[in-house]
């Protein structure tokens, strides 16, 4: 007879002293872990609830401006530094870690229309209503020195926007035409126009650095190549586009913030249909900025809220609002992709977390493992109705909520009318037009 009994030595399973960690032997045999799926589901449900409990995105409000904040700029070399220009011509430089204003400049008379930093982070440019372009040093004046711009360019017309090239000493301004300037000269290298209209914003492509995009008030978005003397092509939409922003990871993708409450993500190579129409705002979208990962962008709207959209989704994943925040004019996603800043009418700059329930500060490895695990579970069970309902739920101010209801009814009515028209006309003569194709009027090359 040969016999062996299961006989465990307790010393192998119990810690030796009280100072040791407890021993936890693992066995991943599925029969020892029954109800794997239901338990994971419950964990995912709990994680989703906790996510909503811990969703406290508002971090700080930077106050000090004496008029509405009109434009924001990041410093490419310093995460903590932010520049803002106000409607009274004042430019402030902020330190985000201290949450304090470190410098104030009376830059222009009238609005500061645009602000941008040089790629090296040592100086910045502002344009204003006083028809000037000014270059300023990032560091403040030393003791006894006066606050003066490095250069001032006097133009003929009002400039409404400015953007700097990502690698070279070249910048572009827009107004009645798009001008491209060398930093060393006082007259533009070239100026490009396509029709006569005021151009509201111009943006350099961060990857294909010779490319520019601009949007004008005659409802079109025009693309330029800096190496050519004439514009490349333009797309005409239903309504005016306020700003565009290039995707920092995909060279040919850009998103346009439109007056018709929508955002349109375009592929530069095929402008006749947008890649995605992002709908959720209930008023004109004023500004848009991409996250440095290129997967999401944030938009600021006249409806007193900012929303975060994934690039490939038509609905927003997040909406931020506070009681005191008025029409949001400008928004920026910080370069570490963790925070969002927005400047609004009521003179404040607000700092938000990009991920509402994220824990700030250093995480221990166990905390990190737990959050990663929960994230994966939420992803796995995201389509279950109960979990979906909880994770989608957002409290909205009454004005936005009622507007959404109203617009839903309007949209429904329009759709019904269209259906009726199809029903009562000769089959095939009236076609259903998809949402993507509906808003593009024409593409001109």
């Amino acid at each position, binding site marked *: *007879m*040969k*016999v*062996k*009994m*299961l*006989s*465990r030595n*307790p010393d*192998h*399973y*119990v810690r030796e002293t009280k100072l040791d960690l*407890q*021993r*936890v*032997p*693992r*066995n*991943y*045999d*599925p*029969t*020892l*872990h*029954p*109800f*794997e*799926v*239901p*338990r994971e*589901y*419950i*964990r995912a449900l*709990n994680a989703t609830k906790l996510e909503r409990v811990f969703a406290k995105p508002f971090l700080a409000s930077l106050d000090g401006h004496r008029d509405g904040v009109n434009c924001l700029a990041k410093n490419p070399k310093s995460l903590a530094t932010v520049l803002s220009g106000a409607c009274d011509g004042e430019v402030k430089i902020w330190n985000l870690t201290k949450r304090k204003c470190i410098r104030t400049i009376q830059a222009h008379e009238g609005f500061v229309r645009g602000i941008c930093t040089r790629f090296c982070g040592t100086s910045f440019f502002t344009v204003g209503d006083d028809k000037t372009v000014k270059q300023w040093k990032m560091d403040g004046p030393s003791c006894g020195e006066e606050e003066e711009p490095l250069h001032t360019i006097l133009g003929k017309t009002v400039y409404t926007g400015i953007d700097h090239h990502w690698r070279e000493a070249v910048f572009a301004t827009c107004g009645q035409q798009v001008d491209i300037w060398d930093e060393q000269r006082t007259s533009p290298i070239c100026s490009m126009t396509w029709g006569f209209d005021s151009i509201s914003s111009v943006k350099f492509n961060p990857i294909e650095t010779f490319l520019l995009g601009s949007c004008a008030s005659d409802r079109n978005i025009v693309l330029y190549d800096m190496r050519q003397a004439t514009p490349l092509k333009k797309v005409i939409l239903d309504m005016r586009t306020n700003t565009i922003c290039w995707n920092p990871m995909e060279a040919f993708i850009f998103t346009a913030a439109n007056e018709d409450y929508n955002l349109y993500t375009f592929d530069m190579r095929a402008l006749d249909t947008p890649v995605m129409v992002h709908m959720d705002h209930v008023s004109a979208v004023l500004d848009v900025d991409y996250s440095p990962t290129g997967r999401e962008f944030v938009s600021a709207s006249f409806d007193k809220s900012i929303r975060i959209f994934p690039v490939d989704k038509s609905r927003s994943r997040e909406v931020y609002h506070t009681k005191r925040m008025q029409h949001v004019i400008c928004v920026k996603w910080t370069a570490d992709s963790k925070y969002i800043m927005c400047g609004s009418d009521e003179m404040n700059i607000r700092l938000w977390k990009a991920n509402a329930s994220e824990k700030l500060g250093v995480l221990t490895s166990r905390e990190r493992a737990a959050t990663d695990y929960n994230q994966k579970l939420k992803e*796995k069970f995201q389509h*279950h109705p109960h979990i979906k309902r909880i994770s989608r739920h957002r409290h909205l101010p009454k004005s936005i909520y009622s507007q959404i209801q109203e617009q839903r009814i309007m949209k429904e009515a329009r*759709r019904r009318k269209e*259906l009726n028209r*199809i*029903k009562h006309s000769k089959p095939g003569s009236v076609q*259903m037009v998809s949402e993507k194709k509906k808003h593009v009027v024409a593409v001109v090359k």
Partner: protein
Amino acid sequence: METVPEPGSNVPPKKDRLQTKKKKPRRYWEQETTGTAAGASPGPPRKRKRNRELRPQKPKKNDTSKKFRISKKPRELKSPRPQRSLSGAQDPFAGPAPVSVEVVQKYCRIDKSKELPHPKTKTRSRLVVAEAQEEETSVRAARSELLLTEEPGFLEGEDGEDTAKIRQADIVEAVDIASAAKHFDLNLRQFGPYRLNYSRNGRHLAFGGRRGHVAALDWVTKKLMCEINVMEAVRDIRFLHSEALLAVAQNRWLHIYDNQGIELHCVRRCDRVTRLEFLPFHFLLATASETGFLTYLDVSVGKIVAALNARAGRLSVMTQNPYNAVIHLGHSNGTVSLWSPAMKEPLVKILCHRGGVRAVAVDSTGMHMATSGLDHQLKVFDLRGTFQPLSARTLPQGAGHLAFSQRGLLAAGMGDVVNIWAGQGKASPPSLEQPYLTHRLSGHVHGLQFCPYEDVLGVGHSGGITSMLVPGAAEPNFDGLESNPYRSRKQRQEWEVKALLEKVPAELICLDPRALAEVDVISLEQAKKERAERLGYDPDARAPFQPKPKQKGRSSTASLVKRKRKVMDQEHRDKIRQSLEQQLQKQEKAKPTGARPSALDRFVH
């Protein structure tokens, strides 16, 4: 005897074994002696070696990156041949550790037989990635079996010796002292036949005698936790989620005691309870009563979740399926019905015996159910697919009590004898021909349970309690986060909080616990239909074929129409072919399969 071969058997390849036989052991970093010096060096010929050294580095990298691939042909994942480093040292165990395909299969959760959606969809690419990850995790989990420390027990007779003839005293004599101490008899003749229950981690034992004697003890150290007499008949006894709470089905009502023997609750909604089952992941106490009701009590909030009328008279046979938490009830008309609290009707009814059902047991994988009836039959049923008997045998007396062990041993109590049958490995049904062990007790068996994580079978009988040694019954390696026999008080408290946080709601109990992770096709289709109705057109419908314009005069109206017609005809033919196939299938289904053709069949058509 089923001793599972150690997974991922880390026996070195044959060639290496030869090497170790002929030469004295050598450190892997030592310079390999040249062929002439070593004489009969079994290494590969020098020419080939040089070739290998000449090979560029790149393909090797590819080799390691694909280490998780499992090819079906070889039974083991082959590790790449030993590679030489710059210093000339050779790693004899190069590459990842070998894993056998069967072990990987055990950890695999994805059903690969299912067809993936259309190749261009996003879902498909996501599924392909998920599948690759799944494969990798299952290989890793299988590889981690190397780290398991304990081996299962076994009992083998010498050639020709029948293990059933081996007496408990022989086993006790042969095994070590610690194991021998696990065999004991409690002589409690006074308070008559006993029911018993082990706690989930196998550390504690509670028993209750018909004449009111209730006790709980740490049976490993033999430390008594409490001993009381409830002065009432005790029908059944059960630990709740931890050893601190004890449910006792007494003559009238259900009572809950703590580990000091203090009565915490008297649940009057559960009266005349005959059998108790505790579902640990749902925190549900299922009670079967004389009045024919199956009642689910949520012990975490103290609410009755469901009270189901089985409509089959007195219920006295009940067990749970540990795989899906479905309750099996045995009835006097020979049926076994499967219940979940979400349904008022049984999920399944199985006709098992010609007489009443006396005992039911379900194994830990939820694949097999053993039943015994008044017709003296013992049957093993397949629970996963067909609910058909896999094997059956007639016992001289018939079994009154049945129990499965963690590794699939089946124990049956017949009068004052306990028989134990074993199968081949964990997931296979026990073979009923030859018993593995038998034991005669001093009284009639009244309760049976295998102790989790210990090779012990607890038997409650009219003479007291007997703890039998059954080598190879229990899972040798426990999971410390799931149920740890050696856990401290702090660990138990921590576990209790975690377990309560992830309490599975009672509505999720169903036959297939993995159903929650599947795509709900029915409601998906319903939603699609509703959407099409709401929109007035189907957004996912395929647009009708529009011929592309071609150049050089081949785009005439006639040719366009021709091309259009061609595609239409093809589609039409496909439709007809499909409908014909469906008709054929229907006809085949309608035919009675297996039944003998009857002379009256000719009148059917």
